């Protein structure tokens, strides 16, 4: 059949789809183009071309711009529209609504032959029963007629309405998103893990304090974070990029704007996107300024913490309170809580008490406390009391304890079971102490009344007599108790006016300082008789609990007898003092005299010194000259002088010689004290030998025998020791008996204690005892002391030569050496000199 049809359809319409069929079936007889078989070849080819293409195409042909189109174009004409009426229609008639737009395009192509190109051009058309906004992308191109002139226009077009609308919808949705982002004041960010580049919206960049250039390094962003958050955020980013938790990212951190130093707390939300091989290729999301929320949250946290702290503090306070606190619930008084203090008071542990009905644990207190609890439960008001006595079992024994307490309903305004807080302080010690004090006070009062010391208590400014003991009443006041009780002091004793006492008592009341005085004179008058006392008194302030002074306690002791006795003593002392003064004056005068004597003595000493010098030098000089010249005369004029004359010169010579020895000895003696020389260890044997050597001619001449035992070594001045032995030996030789050769023996031993008797030596020291014995003329026993005196001569000058100073010098030297010397002898029986020298 199709062959039949096909054979009747003109060839250029065959295979032209539905539109080919429609063109064939249309009645063209009255149309300006005539029947299709007669259309020009160029038109036929053009139509055939468009019918066989799947792209929407349209043709305007001829002067009237007759319209043709293919199947692909039909959808653009919609339903219930121009199809198929505009087929073969003039363009002007077919497209009245768009004619204004397309006419110039068509004309342009017809005129120039150049194709046009329009993309997504809005050309509203009538279709689907209404005008529709339709977007087109189309090209108009020229069609040539058989004569190769432009005869028509071919429109190749595609409707892009759907794409455009989609695009518009997308744009709108993006705008909405942007608006939402703006409205929510969100920052957005987008990070590319491959490039490590990061982008964000302007808000985000301004928050981070970074410039609004396109992209930035991630590190620039992390630097904006406060240092303490950086690690945490970096870790979170890393986890998201590793795909932990599906790449989701949710973190809150703080950033600091480097320019303004404003700190923001932000919450970042986002996710990472992964490709097929599980690699993150994108990581983006939003940033929300949660500073205010965080601050509020922080405030809330702090407020909660504070509430918790307060709760803890309350618990702590109760726990550590230095009073007993317990909370009871309901009529059964279930112990809800008991602090350590009350546990200690009740001698119970918290396990024993808490959760238990009070009276079951502590049956002994039920009688005492249950009325109080009942009152609180009934009235729902606090009950308080002091010194409540309760029997408490402590260490197995019931003891009476005293308590001050408050019972306080905790939840009196709610309908819950009533809770009662019990706060208590044990005052047992205080009560017991007070009882003892009261007891003591009464004992004290008795003591005062019976005291042998006079006492009284005065109260108030008016000094009202509150108490006066028997001693005071009888001894001083000479009044009965009834006459003074409750009266003013000045009223009972008007004579006190003008005496010091009232003033002193008032002072104690005013200052609170105790006043104490001794031996004060007091006068009391009784029945015109005046009694005089000397008293020691003490006025003590009496204080109230608040420290104010309400009275004075007087203590008075009668010291009249002592006072009078002392008066006598004082007078006696004064006399003594006068006497001492007198004596002191006398002593002072005596001292002055002594001082003057010392001065004189010093002066005399100085004179003596100058005498020493004069004698040593100036006296010797003329003397020596007398001697020298005398000796020269005797020598030179020997032959010329008469015998008498020679004798006279001899006498001059002897006298001068004696005088010279005298001066030498005097000098030696006086210099002994002055020239205190250093002591040195001295061998007395050596000293002795030197002396014997010096005296050898005299020893030989006299035929003397000198023997000596070994002598000790002593601490001494050697030349002085030489002087001693020289003088003693010289004396022994000198005072020998006529015609009997001298025998001199020297021995030494350690002194016995008995030897030291009667000598001024230190008996604790050891002494050498050196004895020098001779067989000479000796001396009388009575002279034993005197021979040591200066210039003391026992013998006639002509009989024995000498100055009388030898032994004085010896004694002085021995004393200088802290020793002693004594002489013993009998007339005609020889002499013994004993020397003691320290060992």
């Amino acid at each position, binding site marked *: 059949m199709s062959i039949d049809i096909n054979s009747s359809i003109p060839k250029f319409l065959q295979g032209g789809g539905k539109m080919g069929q429609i063109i064939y079936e249309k009645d063209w007889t009255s149309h300006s183009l005539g029947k299709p078989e007669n259309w020009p070849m160029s038109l036929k080819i053009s139509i055939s071309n468009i019918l066989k293409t799947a792209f929407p195409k349209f043709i305007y042909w001829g002067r009237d711009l007759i319209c043709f189109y293919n199947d692909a174009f039909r959808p653009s004409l919609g339903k219930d529209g121009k199809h198929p009426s505009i087929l073969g229609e003039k363009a002007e008639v077919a497209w009245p609504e768009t004619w204004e737009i397309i006419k110039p395009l068509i004309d342009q192509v017809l005129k120039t032959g150049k194709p046009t190109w329009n993309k997504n051009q809005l050309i509203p058309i009538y279709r689907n029963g209404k005008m529709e906004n339709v977007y087109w992308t189309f090209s108009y191109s020229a069609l040539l007629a058989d004569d190769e002139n432009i005869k028509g226009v071919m429109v190749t077009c595609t409707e892009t309405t759907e794409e455009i609308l989609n695009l518009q919808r997308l744009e709108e949705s993006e705008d909405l998103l942007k608006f939402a982002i703006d409205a929510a004041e969100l920052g957005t960010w987008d990070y590319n893990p491959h490039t490590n580049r990061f982008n964000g919206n302007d808000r985000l960049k301004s928050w981070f304090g970074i410039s609004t250039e396109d992209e930035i390094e991630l590190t620039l962003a992390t630097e904006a974070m406060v240092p303490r958050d950086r690690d945490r955020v970096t870790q979170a980013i890393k986890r998201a990029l590793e795909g932990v938790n599906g790449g989701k990212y949710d973190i809150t951190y703080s950033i600091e704007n480097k320019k303004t130093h404003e700190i923001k707390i932000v919450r970042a939300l986002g996710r990472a996107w992964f490709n097929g091989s599980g690699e993150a290729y994108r990581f983006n999301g939003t940033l929300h300024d949660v500073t205010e929320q965080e601050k509020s949250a922080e405030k809330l946290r702090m407020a909660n913490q504070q509430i918790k702290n307060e709760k803890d503090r309350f618990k702590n306070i109760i726990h550590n309170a230095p009073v007993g606190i317990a909370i009871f619930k309901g009529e059964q008084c279930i112990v809800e809580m008991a602090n350590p203090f009350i546990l200690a008071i009740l001698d119970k542990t918290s396990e024993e008490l808490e959760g238990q009905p009070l009276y079951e644990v502590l049956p002994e207190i039920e009688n005492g406390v249950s009325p109080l609890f009942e009152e609180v439960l009934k009235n729902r008001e606090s009950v308080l009391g002091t010194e409540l006595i309760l029997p408490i079992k402590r260490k197995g024994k019931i003891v009476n304890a005293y308590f001050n307490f408050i019972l306080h309903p905790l939840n009196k305004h709610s309908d819950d079971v009533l809770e009662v807080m019990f706060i208590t302080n044990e005052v047992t010690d205080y009560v017991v102490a007070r009882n003892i004090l009261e007891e003591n006070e009464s004992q004290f009062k008795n003591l005062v009344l019976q005291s042998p010391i006079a006492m009284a208590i005065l109260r108030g400014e008016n000094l009202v007599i509150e108490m006066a003991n028997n001693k005071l009443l009888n001894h001083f006041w000479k009044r009965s108790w009834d006459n003074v009780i409750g009266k003013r002091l000045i009223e009972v004793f008007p004579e006190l006016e003008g005496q010091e006492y009232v003033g002193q008592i008032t002072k104690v009341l005013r200052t609170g300082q105790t006043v104490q005085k001794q031996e004060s004179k007091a006068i009391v008058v009784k029945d015109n008789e005046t009694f005089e006392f000397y008293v020691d008194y003490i006025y003590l302030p009496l204080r109230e609990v608040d420290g104010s002074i309400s009275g004075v306690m007087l203590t008075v002791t009668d010291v009249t007898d002592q006072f009078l006795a002392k008066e006598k003593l004082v007078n006696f002392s004064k006399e003594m003092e006068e006497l001492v003064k007198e004596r002191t004056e006398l002593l002072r005068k005596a001292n002055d005299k002594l001082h003057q004597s010392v001065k004189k003595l010093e002066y005399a000493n100085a004179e003596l010194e100058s005498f020493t010098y004069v004698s*040593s030098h100036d006296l010797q000089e003329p*003397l020596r000259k007398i001697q*020298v010249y005398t000796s020269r005369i005797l020598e030179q004029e020997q032959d010329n002088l008469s015998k008498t004359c020679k004798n006279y010169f001899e006498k001059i010579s002897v006298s001068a010689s004696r005088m010279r*020895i005298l001066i030498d000895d005097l000098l030696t003696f006086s210099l002994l004290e002055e020239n205190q*020389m250093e002591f040195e260890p001295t061998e007395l044997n050596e000293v002795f030998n030197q002396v014997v050597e010096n005296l050898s001619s005299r020893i030989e001449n006299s035929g003397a025998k000198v023997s000596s035992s070994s002598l000790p070594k002593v601490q001494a001045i050697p030349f002085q020791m030489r002087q001693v032995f020289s003088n003693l030996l010289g004396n022994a030789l000198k005072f020998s008996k006529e015609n009997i050769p001298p025998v001199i023996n020297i021995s030494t031993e350690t002194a016995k204690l008995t030897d030291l008797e009667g000598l001024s030596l230190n008996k604790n020291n050891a002494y050498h005892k050196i004895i020098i014995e001779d067989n000479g003329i000796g001396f009388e026993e009575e002279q034993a002391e005197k021979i040591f005196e200066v210039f003391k001569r026992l013998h006639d000058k002509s009989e024995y030569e000498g100055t009388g100073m030898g032994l004085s010098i010896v004694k002085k030297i021995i004393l200088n050496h802290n020793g002693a010397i004594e002489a013993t002898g009998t007339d005609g029986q020889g002499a013994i000199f004993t020397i003691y020298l320290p060992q």
Partner: protein
Amino acid sequence: MCDNPYHVFLIDDDEDDRDLFEDALMEIPTKTRVVTFGSGIELFNFIKDENNQPPQIIFLDLNMPMMSGEECLQKIRENPRFRNLPVVIFSTSIVDPLVNRVKSLGASLYVKKPSSFSSLKSILESCITALLENEIKIGVELDFIVKENL
């Protein structure tokens, strides 16, 4: 014994003593040539002139006005020419501290002026011979202090 007389100086303010000294030296066996000075100042004026012959021994009194014998001794010893010259102290009295002082200043002997002319002669003789001929050491063979035997 040397033929040339010993050159002896005496410094003494006492004219009598100077005369006695010269007389005594004239009478002793040892030959001497003596120059006397009344004070240390005179001595130093004399020896300043190097043309004057220096002494071989000096006898020096201690108690002199203006310049004491002690001072004089010290100055003599300060002069290098007289550092080793024998100096004999020739004094009336013996005072211990003074003895020690002049000894430490370098005096050769301390002679107490004798009270007889014969003693004076013998002492001078023994001093000069001891110091100038026999070179006797002081302190060993001769006491530092020389007194006449009474």
